[in-house]
């Protein structure tokens, strides 16, 4: 009898209900600036989204099995490019914003072509060193980066269409919020398409079994470099938006600790998913970090954040991120399905 019920249910409700819950949640988030003008809420959400883009970039690199510990350096590169172009060279905002991601992607391409020949731990160490190098250059190249004083940038110009001022970045934070949403959406769509395509499956193959992939005729380095470059481009855009949102960039904003945090958000969020995992991980852990940072005691934030991460890791099921718990929640708690077994012969 049970089998018939399964067959006649036209709607695949077990698939539709979780997705519509996610959709509802996204719509609610989109409407937040309409309901509230609170600077704290809107700016926290904007920063969460910006960091989520960086975490997504990390996940894309992780897809090819490489561990990049310098993702915040690309945010710094994008941010500084945009800041230098607008403030020091007087270019308009939009072209310089567009260039910022390309510059960061170009540097990712150059570094990746050298370092990704070996990959693995070498890559992690070199990207870590690269992050420090970018910070040192930003700190010491006084005439261009203004050293530790940082560069003060201005808000993007208002968007004027047919004589009407459509969007003004100076009056409220809502434009920044929707700018962030656009960036996250573009990144998510691009990464989703990459993940679904042949390219994404090749990425996965190079990580899963590099030797076998190589014997199938896949040139490992090429795919690693592609992933690293695409991640570099979008991380650069995130950095540029971050710079124009906070309207200042200093060498201390993007350091080693930020790179580690991007790593932590992405991996705890779940690297099985290119989009959901990093966004979920960033949304939860970044805000935990911000909340903990409200104490005035120096060191308490790092201590508590690290402890929370270590405890979460010890209790996560093997190889699963937080995003996998979402599926587990529906199957185990809501639908109360039995454990799914693959090798059960059917009568």
């Amino acid at each position, binding site marked *: 009898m049970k089998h018939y019920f399964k067959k006649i249910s036209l709607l695949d409700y077990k698939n539709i209900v979780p997705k519509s819950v996610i959709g509802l949640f996204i719509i609610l988030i989109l409407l937040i600036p309409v309901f509230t003008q609170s600077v704290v809420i809107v700016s926290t959400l904007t920063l969460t989204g910006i960091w989520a883009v960086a975490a997504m970039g990390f996940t894309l690199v992780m897809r090819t099995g490489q*561990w990049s510990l310098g993702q915040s350096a690309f945010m710094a590169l994008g941010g500084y490019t945009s800041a230098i172009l607008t403030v020091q060279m007087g270019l308009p905002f939009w072209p310089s914003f567009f260039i910022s991601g390309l510059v960061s992607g170009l540097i990712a391409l150059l*570094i990746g072509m*050298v*370092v990704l*020949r*070996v990959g*693995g*731990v*070498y890559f*992690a*160490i*070199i990207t*870590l*060193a*690269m992050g*420090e*190098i970018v910070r*040192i*250059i930003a*700190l*010491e190249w006084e005439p261009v980066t203004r050293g530790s004083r940082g560069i003060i940038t201005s808000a993007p110009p208002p968007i004027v269409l047919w004589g009407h001022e459509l969007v003004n970045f100076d009056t409220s934070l809502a434009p920044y919020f929707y700018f962030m949403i656009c960036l996250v959406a573009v990144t998510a769509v691009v990464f989703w398409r990459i993940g679904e395509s042949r390219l994404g499956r090749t990425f996965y193959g190079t990580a899963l079994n*590099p*030797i076998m992939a190589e014997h199938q005729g896949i040139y490992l380095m090429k795919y690693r470099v592609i992933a690293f470059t695409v991640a570099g481009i979008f991380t650069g855009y995130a950095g540029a938006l971050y710079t124009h949102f906070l309207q200042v960039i200093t060498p201390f904003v993007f350091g*080693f*600790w930020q790179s*580690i945090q991007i*790593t*932590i958000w992405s*991996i*705890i969020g779940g*690297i099985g998913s290119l989009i959901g995992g990093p966004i979920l991980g960033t949304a939860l852990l970044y805000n935990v970090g911000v909340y903990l940072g409200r104490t005035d*005691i*120096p*060191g*308490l*934030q*790092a*201590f*508590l*954040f*690290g*402890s929370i*991460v*270590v405890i979460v*890791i*010890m209790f*996560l*099921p*093997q*190889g*699963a991120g937080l995003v996998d718990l979402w599926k587990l929640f529906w199957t185990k708690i809501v639908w109360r399905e039995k454990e799914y077994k693959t090798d059960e012969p059917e009568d």
Partner: protein
Amino acid sequence: MPPVEILIEGLTQSCILMTMAFGMVLVYSILGILNWTHGWLYMLGAYVVFFATTAAGIPFPIGILLAGLAMAVIGILIKKFIIDHAGNELYVGVATLALIGVLEGAATLLFTGDDRGLATILPGVLRLGVVAVSYQKMAVIGFTLVVMAAMYFVLNHTKVGLAIRAVAQQPVAASLYGISTARLSLIVMGIGCALAGMAGAITAPIYSINPFIGMSPQIMALLAIVLGGLGSLTGAIVGGLIIGFMNSVMAYYISYVSEVVLFALIILILLVRPQGLFGASAK
């Protein structure tokens, strides 16, 4: 030719990096993971010797051993309670990265972020003609020689050393011959972390101590490992020597650009020899 003082400073830095890189490579070859917390154990080792000599009045050499012992205990606790309980290699990496925050935060909470100095230990300089060498730097160099000799003896002439070399080469075959890999990895983690702690302790009189000093030796030691080739103990020593010397000599001529140049040089070496100077062929 740079002044002799710069060369001696380079030798001192090399000694620290050698000790750090040696411990990291040892841990990597047995456990198969990079311990990212090594630099922060270095920092804690410096604090241990600082409080042992100033607050408790323990002599400096015993303070160094105490720092090594304390870091060995911390390393074994990390291995036993965190690394063993993390799901896979990825989570081990994240856990050790998160431990950086825990250790740095704990040190800031306990000892505040202020600079502390231990310059009163081993004051004075030794004059050799025109060259003056401080006793503190001589202590670092002598200590490193002793540690390296001890490690050579342990690895080549004891049963534990034989077991370590066996597990590094063939873990499965070694366990068939009755070597407990789990116990051995605890021992190796202890030795590696003790080396980091003692490196921090012996350099405590030269540099100032604050919770953030772990970063620089960590990155430099990692670069030394990359240069020497991952998994090669000889490579760690040679890489440490080269990086330490180059860093201080170049810092003498071109100040802050030295790290950038160093980084470019390592990239060049990786271009020619992707597996490092002494590494086995890359996978």
